[in-house]
């Protein structure tokens, strides 16, 4: 059924692209890739759990609808991606959907309304080992809706009042019962442009995360308040940077779980030493939503960098690298959790009789703490064969070292063709 649906989508998009008429508000781009994936199940490659590889055929189509008026801009992007796996018998087809919507309206020279919505529908199959399902399907829907009212209070002073709602919904009810959430964020930013090169801002944020769990389940809901500032500076025509820093306090709904506070810092730099070379990098340290049941919080450190180099007029080279560490503390486990609820690798060494004790017993020991490190490297060469056609060669490498899931390394190598129709 899914194959038929995909065939219909592909045929429809090909047909619509062939019918694309200049002057219409629709724009279409397609991208086709053949990829070799050396670890399709994200396995640790041990004797018990070896890696499996597969060829994949990936087709992305990007459809744009946009309208730009004197005071209003409307842009809608839809990108379905179809992935056919040559060697994944239990489920050989994934279909992802991306929607991005932007609406900007200028009420007056001083006041504007900006709305942005990001929707992702992603599929990740169940993990099957020796014929048994050990991890359920990871298919999910994610949506983030942001609205900001920006008001020019004075010629160089801008007040942004913002709200955001995020939701995550997994298809599988067992996964959903611990991972689904709604997040609500409100914030105000008062930004003063000091001169042509510099601006400072004061930031205030309130965020509430509400996990969609059963009443008797472990309560991971949190609220946080953040106060800080941002400095933006253009150092020269080819170098610009931004740094934000402040303080965050997070409180937990669960009984017996104390509030936590932490400073945060977030910096990024863009450097364009010559027109054909662009560099970008950043680093951050802060609290972050957990992402790992039953923890209700993590402290994340992340560093990333990226480079684009136009080797010739037709040949471009892009590379990016990121490293992150998520640190989970026993103190961040809600009071109603048991040691049994912790990931097996975390509670390793705890005797069977102790598994039903409260997880709070682990505070001040090192047993309840966990780390997850992820290293990701990607590179791609793109050759422009025509104004609207490109050939590309890419490599992506991921190395996950975690106490809360499965360690693995994965390489993906692809060759592809891209066209703007």
């Amino acid at each position, binding site marked *: 059924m899914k194959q038929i649906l995909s065939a219909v989508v592909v045929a429809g998009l090909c047909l619509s692209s062939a019918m694309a008429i200049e002057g219409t508000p629709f724009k279409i781009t397609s991208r086709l890739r053949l990829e070799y994936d050396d670890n399709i199940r994200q396995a640790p490659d041990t004797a018990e759990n070896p890696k499996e590889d597969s060829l994949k055929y990936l087709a992305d189509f990007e459809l744009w609808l946009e309208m730009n008026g004197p005071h209003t801009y409307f842009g809608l992007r839809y990108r379905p991606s179809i992935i056919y796996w040559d060697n994944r018998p239990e489920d050989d087809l994934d279909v992802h959907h991306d929607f991005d919507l932007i609406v900007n309206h200028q009420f007056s020279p001083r006041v504007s309304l900006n709305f942005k919505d990001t929707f992702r*529908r992603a599929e990740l199959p169940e993990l099957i080992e020796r014929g048994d399902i050990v991890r359920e399907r990871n298919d999910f829907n994610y949506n983030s809706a942001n609205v900001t009212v920006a008001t020019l209070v004075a010629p160089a002073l801008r007040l942004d009042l913002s709200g955001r709602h995020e939701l995550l919904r997994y298809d599988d009810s067992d996964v959903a019962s611990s991972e689904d959430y709604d997040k609500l964020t409100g914030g105000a930013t008062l930004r003063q442009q000091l001169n042509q090169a510099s601006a400072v801002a004061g930031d205030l944020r309130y965020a509430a995360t509400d996990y969609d769990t059963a009443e008797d389940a472990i309560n991971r809901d949190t609220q946080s308040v953040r106060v800080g500032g941002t400095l933006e500076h253009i150092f020269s025509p080819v170098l610009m940077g931004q740094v*934000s820093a402040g303080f965050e306090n997070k409180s937990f709904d669960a009984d017996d779980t104390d509030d936590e506070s932490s400073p945060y810092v977030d910096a990024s730099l863009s450097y364009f030493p010559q027109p054909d070379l662009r560099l970008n990098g950043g680093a951050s340290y802060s609290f972050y939503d957990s992402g790992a049941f039953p923890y209700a919080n993590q402290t994340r450190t992340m560093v990333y960098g990226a480079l684009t180099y136009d080797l010739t*007029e037709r040949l471009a080279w892009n590379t990016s690298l990121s490293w992150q560490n998520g640190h989970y503390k026993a103190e961040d486990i809600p009071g109603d959790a048991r040691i049994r609820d912790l990931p097996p690798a975390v509670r390793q060494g705890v005797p069977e009789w102790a598994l039903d004790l409260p997880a709070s017993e682990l505070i001040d020991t090192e047993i309840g703490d966990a780390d997850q490190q992820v290293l990701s490297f990607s590179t791609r060469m793109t050759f422009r064969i025509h104004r609207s056609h490109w050939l590309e060669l890419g490599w992506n490498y991921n190395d996950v070292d975690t106490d809360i899931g499965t360690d693995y390394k994965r390489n993906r190598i692809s060759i592809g063709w891209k066209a703007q129709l």
Partner: protein
Amino acid sequence: MNKSLIVWGLVLVMGVLGSAPVGWAQEAPQEAPETAAQPMTQAELARLLVNLLGLGRFLPAAPTDQQCFAVLMENNIAPADGWQGEEIVTRALLARLVVQALRRADEIENPDDPQSWIDFLEGLGVSLETVEDATGELNPMTEPIAPNVYRDASSTDPLQRRDKFSGETEVHFGTDVGYNETVRPLTRREVDRILQEAVRRREARRPATPD
């Protein structure tokens, strides 16, 4: 749901109230023609280009000028002497930026001569009479360069940060990243299943008792 409605309502009401002292509601109808006649600044043009080129999805809902300049520069769209937000847009600058946005800068014979950019654009039949005329031919870029995935994941701002991406098909700074592969930890049912399976395998491997 109620909380959502309250926050959205507050944002809108406060925004409107916040603007009330400057009297936009009364001024708006009269300001429109005046605004149209006013020269455009580089910051305003950058914002327009970000929208037309489909780069807005990589930025916060209401980006700052510098964020707009950075994402344009990452795609090789910049004045010869860099972005200066308050400077007025000239015909030559407009021509240069539009040609860059069309990805045809390599066809300019003499890039140091501002007139070359104007001549080239007019040679394509693009009018430079108004900004709207000049930018009318621009389309969303094919896979623009932007550090969106890692920057959004790295951001400390709860209004911007994001940890969910589209699996293996999100593009970051011109590369295919696999950010989403930070595997979700197992649920309790999954752990129970693994343990049961491990016990079953161990029993299956147990050697037979010798006679």
